[in-house]
């Protein structure tokens, strides 16, 4: 099959497929979801892969040597661990002196881009400057989702056909010259990419690498086009575009530019190119000494931190008594595994009610499309790879989005615009003044709680709404609900000792002036707040018939227990409850008590977060800080409403007591898991199949955006311009900037994710091998893995495909007395530590 497929495609088509693989795969802004930026290299071992990407594309995939050296001198990289790594690499110990030599330089010339430089060398022209503006403009105008007042003509055609139609019906060409040969080539049906390439480059052996040069020099637009090609449904206004189209257009523009500005007779196809430039770009070569130094530094940097974490886990486990672990709380709460929920969980646990908390991916096992009341469109609320068959509709809502003429004004005539400018102009002076001094929610803000109308109803039960829409089943059957509720409860190990109230805490984020808003919401809900999911889960788990089925399956939820859905706004530190009016009267007292505990915990959470925000003083009272944090979330001038996943490095899979009294500084994803009820490994399999790509993807996107913010990140967001609502770019003529802006990653330490699983090593190995895609993450070490044997409490680390017992470097830690002192001590990252008094 494989061979047949290759034969049917031309070499150019194959090359284009290969290019697509290496282009950034970032969806349009509204669906921004974290993923591994260098996913194309994931079939290599991590360091091999990122070193290759360095040589081929010039990506800077490590910190700079001087940064590592600085970290070493600040004791953030342990000398002992460096020596260990040097030994593992079979290097001489003098390599250490080489590494810390301040004069050590790292120099590399990327392979991509070399053929294209010939134009400048021979004809002394900068083709990029000339062709990009038009190329980008056409793509952007075609894909535009609503900025331009007059859209692209012929939007129903595919991009290239639409362009041809414009060219035909217009007096002016879409290219440069009205009478050139390129215009004829544009309309000729028989023109292929390879024909166009031949006009530009004589020898065909260079064609593939030339295309790489061309497309990788504007990876933003090319990547988005490839992404939309593979999933046209990611745009609300459907567009049909593929990478081949834009390659063809770009080649035509290049030919026409040369013809028009250099003169058709004054240039020849490129010839006499260095034959080396036709080589396979991805040929592996041995790492240089400097690369090895970077690799050793990076590994030691990670291991220094890992060792601190593992040591604290070890000390914590040894100090626990079995009797501590029985739940006596009146309240339990299910949170998303998100690292931003760590601290809130810690405060709730140490609050008066001693809430017991659990972590599970924030769609709470219910996968569906959601249709808000006033919309005909649907949005997916589950992890991105899942394709749901269900539809939940919002009914009985009265709200509709507010209008703001400053953000969109349809000027139809000059006179109207004249009048409008006067009216809006003077209003905007006041609006600006108001927002500077008293920031408030505006129609342009992205507010988590607006995702769903709190007082609306949902079409949860299929039997009450027995119909299908566009092939989607409206609501869930009782059986389907029971399946989902039980699988979530089992996966987190909550199968007995149910409390009186069980809260399902979804999360979302609020911000203003933030094109990347959807990256701040719940990753398990496709970059949306998880409010609908939590409400659905709670309602399903409260349904009598569902409980009956669960009881039959041996999962007995007592009648006295009640589930309540709610949404935690991680930016504003506020919580909104759903269906509060339906809470049984007997539970109300506990609910009120929980609320007051929660308000306190949210305020403490704000205080803990405030140490990261420059313009807040963490010494102020927690209530005051909570108020200020709310205010900054809607301030136009605040590019950091929250820090999202910055500093994430850990993912703990196990019971809560594993890390309960450890201060992990909001750096850990926490997935609850009870090894005792997972004899087959199915629960763990489900958890790791999601955790490795989701948490690993988040972690690596932060990693690469941090180490190379210029090329793999989006650079500073302050000058960003919105392009067609699909992406951001600098200025008018820049390429799209995928990746994360510098404001999101500046406090992030580039460390790979460490997944710690509370389960026997052989058992884990068996589970992760069940799915190749998951195993690749671990085998090639794009995430690291440690097992803790639940019986012996021995730690094992997964290296080169096998577990081996972990050797601690530091061995002990001194527990910290007061959490507050710890938080107030610094604005930097804080080491993992045991806390005696968690308040």
């Amino acid at each position, binding site marked *: 099959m494989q061979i047949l497929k290759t034969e049917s495609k031309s070499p150019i088509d194959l090359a284009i497929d290969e290019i697509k693989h290496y282009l950034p795969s970032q969806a349009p802004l509204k669906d921004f979801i974290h993923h591994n930026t260098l996913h194309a290299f994931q079939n290599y071992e991590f360091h091999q892969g990122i070193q290759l990407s360095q040589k081929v594309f010039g990506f800077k995939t490590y910190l700079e040597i001087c940064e590592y050296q600085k970290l070493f001198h600040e004791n953030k990289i342990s000398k002992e661990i460096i020596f260990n790594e040097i030994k593992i690499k079979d290097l001489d110990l003098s390599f250490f002196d080489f590494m810390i030599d301040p004069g050590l330089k790292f120099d590399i010339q990327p392979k991509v881009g070399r053929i294209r430089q010939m134009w400048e060398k021979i004809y002394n022209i900068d083709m990029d400057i000339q062709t990009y503006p038009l190329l980008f403009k056409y793509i952007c105008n075609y894909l535009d989702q609503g900025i331009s007042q*007059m*859209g692209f003509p012929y939007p129903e055609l595919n991009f290239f056909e639409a362009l041809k139609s414009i060219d035909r019906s217009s007096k*002016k060409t879409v290219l440069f010259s009205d009478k050139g040969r390129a215009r004829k080539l544009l309309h000729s049906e028989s023109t292929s990419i390879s024909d166009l390439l031949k006009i530009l480059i004589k020898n065909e052996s260079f064609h593939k690498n030339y295309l790489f040069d061309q497309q990788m020099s504007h990876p933003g637009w090319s990547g988005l086009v490839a992404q939309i090609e593979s999933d046209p449904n990611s745009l609300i206004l459907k567009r049909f575009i593929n990478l081949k189209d834009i390659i063809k257009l770009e080649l035509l523009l290049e030919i026409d530019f040369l013809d028009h500005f250099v003169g058709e007779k004054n240039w020849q196809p490129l010839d006499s190119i260095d034959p080396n430039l036709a080589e396979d770009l991805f040929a592996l070569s041995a790492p240089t000494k400097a690369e090895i130094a970077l690799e050793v530094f990076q590994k030691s940097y990670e291991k220094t931190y890992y060792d601190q974490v593992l040591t604290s886990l070890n000390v914590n486990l040894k100090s626990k008594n079995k009797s501590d672990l029985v739940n006596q709380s009146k309240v339990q709460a299910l949170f998303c595994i998100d690292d931003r929920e760590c601290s809130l969980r810690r405060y709730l646990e140490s609050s008066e009610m001693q809430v017991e908390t659990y972590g599970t991916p924030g769609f709470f096992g219910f996968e569906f499309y959601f249709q808000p009341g006033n919309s005909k469109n649907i949005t997916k609320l589950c992890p991105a790879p899942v394709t749901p068959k269900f539809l939940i509709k919002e009914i009985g809502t009265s709200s509709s989005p507010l209008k703001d003429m400053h*953000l969109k004004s349809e000027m139809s005539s000059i006179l109207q615009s004249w009048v409008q400018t006067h009216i809006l102009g003077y209003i905007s002076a006041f609006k*600006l003044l108001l927002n500077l001094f008293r920031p408030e929610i505006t129609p342009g803000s992205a507010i988590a709680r607006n995702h769903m109308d709190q007082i609306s109803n949902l079409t949860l039960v299929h039997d009450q709404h027995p119909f299908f829409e566009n092939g989607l089943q409206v609501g869930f059957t009782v059986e389907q609900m029971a399946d989902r509720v039980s699988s979530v409860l089992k996966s987190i190990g909550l199968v007995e000792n149910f409390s009186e109230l069980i809260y399902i805490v979804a999360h979302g984020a609020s911000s203003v002036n933030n094109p990347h808003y959807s990256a701040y919401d719940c990753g398990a809900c496709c970059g949306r707040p998880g409010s609908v999911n939590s409400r659905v889960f709670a309602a399903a788990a409260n349904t009598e018939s569902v409980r009956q089925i669960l009881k039959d399956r041996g999962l007995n939820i007592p009648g006295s227990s009640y589930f309540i859905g709610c949404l935690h706004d991680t930016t504003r530190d506020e919580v909104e409850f759903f269906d509060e009016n339906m809470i049984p009267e007997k539970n109300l007292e506990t609910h009120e008590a929980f609320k007051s505990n929660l308000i306190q915990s949210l305020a403490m959470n704000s205080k803990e977060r405030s140490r990261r925000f420059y313009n807040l003083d963490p010494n102020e009272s927690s209530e005051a800080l909570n108020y200020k944090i709310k205010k900054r979330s809607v301030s136009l001038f605040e590019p950091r409403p929250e820090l999202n996943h910055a500093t994430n490095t850990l993912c703990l899979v196990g019971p809560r007591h594993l890390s309960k009294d450890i201060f992990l500084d909001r750096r850990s994803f926490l997935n609850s898991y009870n090894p005792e009820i997972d004899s087959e490994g199915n629960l763990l399999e489900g958890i790791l199949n999601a955790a490795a790509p989701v948490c690993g993807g988040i972690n690596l996107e932060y990693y690469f955006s941090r180490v190379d913010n210029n090329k793999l990140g989006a650079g500073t967001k*302050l000058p960003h311009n919105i392009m067609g609502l699909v992406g951001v770019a600098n200025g008018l003529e820049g390429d799209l900037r995928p990746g994360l802006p510098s404001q999101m990653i500046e406090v992030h330490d580039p460390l790979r994710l460490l997944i710690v699983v509370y389960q026997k090593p052989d058992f884990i190995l068996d589970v992760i091998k069940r799915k190749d895609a998951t195993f690749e993450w671990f085998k090639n070490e794009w995430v690291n893995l440690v097992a803790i044997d639940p019986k012996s409490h021995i730690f094992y680390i997964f290296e080169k495909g096998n577990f081996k017992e972990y050797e601690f470097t530091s061995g002990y830690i001194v527990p910290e007395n007061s959490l507050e002192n710890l938080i107030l001590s610094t604005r930097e990252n804080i080491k993992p530590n045991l806390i005696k008094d968690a308040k």
Partner: protein
Amino acid sequence: MNNLVLFIFIFPFLSFILSLILPQNEKVISRWALFAASINLMANLTALILFTASAFEPVFVRTGAILESHGYSFFAALYLDYVSLIFILLGSSVTFLITLYSRFYMHSENGYKRFLSTILFFYFGFNTVILAGNFESLMAGWEILGLSSFLLIGFYQNRFLPIKNSLKIFSIYRIGDIGLILAAWSCHILLEKNISFDQFSNLESLNISLGHNQFLAFFLAFCLILAASVKSAQFPFFTWLPRAMEGPTPSSAIFYGSLSVHMGCYILIRTSALWQDQILAKALIFIIGGITVFMCQSTARVQSTIKSQIAYSSLVQIGLIFIEISFGLIPLALVHLIANSFLRTYQLLISPSVVTYLIKEQFYDPKQNEYYTKNFSNYFLKRFYVNSVKEWNIDHIHDKYLWHPLKVLGRIFSSLSTGNYFALMFGFSGVLVALGLYRPELSTFIVFAMTFIGLSFGLRAFAEKNNAIFAWNLIFLNHLWVGISNKMLTVHNTDLIIYLSGILPSWIIGYILLSYLKNQKNDLHIRTHQGLNQKYEKLSLLFLFCCLGLSGFPISPSFIGEDLLFHNIKAQEIWMSLLLAVTYVLDGIAIMRIYSRLFLGPNLDHNLDYSLKSS
């Protein structure tokens, strides 16, 4: 009141100077900037009260003559009437809001201090232009605006596009500078004195002077309109405005949304006494405004990026303001202008919100889909769609008919070997000087030829690619030749001394700096950007000062010297003044080009830590 006006003028300058010596500490700098902005605003409000109390009596303050030279006196003057009051109120309130905004917005950005200092510098320039009481003061402010523009557009010094665009826009601004220089010159010639703006109200005598040389009067109006069209991005210059939006959003908001882009309107309003009786000039303003409205309206409609859409929508309004001005509807124009300033500032500041807002709208309001995909007006499509997307090819026209010919001319000169070239030029100049001594009646021709040789140095510097030091020296030679030829027009040595007093030291220091760089094994080519400022931060700043000195920026006495040179040119020598103006403009561009190419841009030698050219 006079003291208050003086304070309003001087305080921004002091606050800028102090901001330079403040430590690199965000809190200190931002507090100072905010304090300065509040003081400016309060002082202007006080002025408003006093002004109202004095029944809108204009205020005129002038220094004594800074330089007195054979009947020409150079002085600085301030003039405050209701127009300038409205403008400084607008300026100080927008600056205050933007400063407040930027304090937090710019946090931890590389160049936080540079940003706020540049904003203060900009405000000082803005203030100077608005309060200027004569052309000399106005020109000083004008230069400051141009420079602060260059600095803010190129705020991200190590990315390619901002650097490219900052130089491009600086070059276009220089065209506007020609307009202003020549306007000042023709005004002096026409009115036979260094006129101050308070005398504009004396219409009768003005009309008489303007009336006796109608050609020159129109030339004066034309130059003013040229300067205004460039600064306010009107036809045929409007493409620079969207390209200026490369800096942090608040700087685009204050500059290109609001204050800077309306300066052209201000110039027209301020000098309306000089053109309002010329039907031809009024028609010209009307036509420029009209074409801009038409072209920018259609271009705005097809913009799919938010900032360029705001820019073009703003230009439509400015075009309308030009039309209002052409009809003499000054109060209407002012009201319109203020509205447009605030609207665009606000729209730019909230521009990132457009994603959430419009996606929400798309999601909830399916009407949008129909609207969007509905059939295109065939007529519009045929005639204008491609033209609008290509922004009416304005950029290509500039390249083809303006910059390219200059480069071709430059290349003709550089096709000669350096030795031959100098031998030829020096020889020719020697002959001319000798001829001048024996045949004084030919002096006009000789001066012209000498200036032209000077210009050839400038052109060659403009086209130079390989050697920054060579280009630097050529620019100096250019100035020297201009100075010498001008000396032949007059008997005064002082003019030449003043002229060279700023240029000579700047040239020498610049030369030393460049030689030092060369000794440090840098290849000082200026083909592409080298980004040396990453390695030589202090040196690059110092070199920038040398560039300013060499280009006769108002920090150096050469600024006055240039003025004196123009003063020596007589009415019938209009070609001479044109040539001289072109020389200055070309010089300025060539100088900033050296700076930009050497010190700015991505530094490819610096590890892998650079941005792609396309970003």
